[in-house]
């Protein structure tokens, strides 16, 4: 079982993830972006690039009135990013597979802070999802599954931190595999499509002379 999880299932999950994400993006692009022949007031290219950044904080009162999801969102995503790319076992793992000199992992206290931020963010976002009337109405099984699988991957990752017990490490790899297999078919795809969406909206707005 261990060799299956660390061997063929890992390869298969990675393949499904990579091909699935590529397939989703190609399928979206194949639908075609409509041309806007109206004479523009501003540069679409500049607006598209600006749009990538501008959405990082909600405008006007919307950000102030929604500090919980905004701060929890940042805590979760930044924490997860740090764990994913700077946790010592991940750095060693990536170093093994990627060319180049590799990079320095974060210290243990960094790991603890990143994990706390990521867990707190994820849990707060999920609690808001089930408690706030708007998010409760909007949320689907997909949202709960995605949150659950992410939680599982993070949780098993913490358990496996010292790699002292192979079983825990295998469990973590298995949780990540589930996440990778589910990713392309879910809203987790926003990790990629959000850049396309922000750019498209920013470009159109800029053509209309609007900073959005």
């Amino acid at each position, binding site marked *: 079982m261990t060799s299956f999880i660390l061997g063929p299932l890992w390869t298969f999950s990675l393949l499904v993830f990579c091909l699935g994400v590529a397939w*989703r993006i190609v*399928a*979206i*692009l*194949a*639908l*075609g*972006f*409509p*041309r*806007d*022949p*109206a*004479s523009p*007031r*501003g540069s679409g290219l500049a607006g598209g690039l600006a*749009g990538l950044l501008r*959405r*990082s904080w*909600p*405008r*006007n*009162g*919307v950000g102030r*009135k*929604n500090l919980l*999801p905004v701060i929890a*969102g940042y805590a979760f995503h930044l924490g997860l990013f740090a764990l994913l790319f700077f946790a010592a076992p991940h750095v060693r793992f990536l170093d093994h597979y990627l060319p180049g000199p590799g990079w320095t992992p974060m210290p243990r206290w960094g790991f603890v802070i990143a994990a706390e931020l990521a867990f707190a963010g994820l849990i707060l976002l999920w609690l808001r*999802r089930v408690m*706030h*009337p*708007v*998010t*409760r*109405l*909007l*949320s*689907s099984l*997909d*949202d709960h599954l995605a949150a659950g699988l992410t939680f599982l991957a993070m949780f098993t990752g913490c358990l496996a931190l010292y790699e002292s017990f192979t079983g825990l490490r295998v469990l973590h790899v298995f949780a990540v595999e589930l996440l990778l297999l589910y990713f*392309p*078919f879910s*809203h987790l*795809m*926003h990790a990629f*499509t*959000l850049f*396309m*969406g*922000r*750019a*498209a*909206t*920013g470009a*159109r707005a800029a053509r*209309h*002379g*609007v*900073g*959005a």
Partner: protein
Amino acid sequence: MNRMSTYAPETSLERGIERLRAQIDARVATWFSSCVHCGLCAEACHFYAETGDPRYTPIHKLAPLKKVWRQEYTFFGRLARKLGISEPLDEQDFADWEELVYDACTLCGRCTMVCPVGNDITAMLRKQREGFAAAGYAPEGLKGATRRTVEVGSPMGLTWKALEAQIRHVERETGLGVPVDREGADYLALLSSLEIMGYPEYIGAITRILHRAGVSWTLSSRAFEATNSGIQIGDADVARELLQRVFDAAESLGVKNIISPECGHAYTAIRWESAGLLGREVPYRIIHIVELLDELKRAGRLPTAGRTGVRVTFHDPCNLVRKGGVVDEPRRLLEAVAADVVEGPDSGVMNWCCGGGGGVSANERAEGLRLAAFRRKKAQFETLGVEAVVTACANCRNILEEGIEHYAMDVEVMGLTELLAEYLAEDGQGDAVAG
């Protein structure tokens, strides 16, 4: 598709679904794929903000279009449909969502501005209306307005004869001639029926202003109406036909520029949607009246004398700021004729909608909800402590007046163009300098 269905009494599920399917392009697929169901767009919508009803969350209003996308463009959606475990879109969905699509959305664009993943929710809402209109699920008020625009030429059923009468009146009042069907004029000016019937002083104002600035302009007896009910109800065929009428008139008169009236949706239709709808570039410079006035003012061709001392704020029409980026122009003009102008934190690009755009004002059924949403404007004006609100859209003006009257507020509503005309300097007087 038979476009007459938009305002025919019968409904057609197939036509509606087919039309919704046709709306799904790469942008829509990207946006639906990106939505993380965070609910932030709810806070931007005046209908949610004032009622607290989660059904008024912008992205929730798109559930029918999303269902078609999910079932036809996603792996699990297709699988579920094949296995028969997901219900296809049905008549009940159209019936249930009609109110959310037409009564509870003014296509104001605020939700688009706040979505963290960059979803242009408003563009999707506009697209979704195409499906609803094709299915026959649109409010009677909008269907009637669309029918009258196609058959008579204006959503209020206004004919050229009625406009002619207003023109005579304006000519008597101003002592100036209103040019009609003047070949070779530089500018073709369009009007909205609300301006003609509700605020004819607008016609007097542009006559005086354009005369003062020495602009060569004309009205067309063939195409004077710019309100585009096709855009409001969501019928691209009607929208295209109405736009074509204007461009035909422009071509026959040999004008180079077209002036959009104040009406925000008319502006969006002719300035931003016309080329896409017609599938080609439009060989005219299309400019909103406020943009033109600002150009003239800055060129020193519109000298003004004196300023009102009334404490005013500017109500930005949604289509101007969030679809056309016309933010500074009205402010420069207002500063030239008003001494005490105040701005709130939401003024400008994030201004709250009056509640009557996107065809809501033509939909009597929506009146209660519209007035509930107006509480947002009420709070805005009260916080600023203004005596008057100036705007540059006849529809906004009408809705603001109704809301102010409903809530018994002591606030006057003024049209920017009329205000400018009021302070126009006599020949040889005033500041000929940029305002």
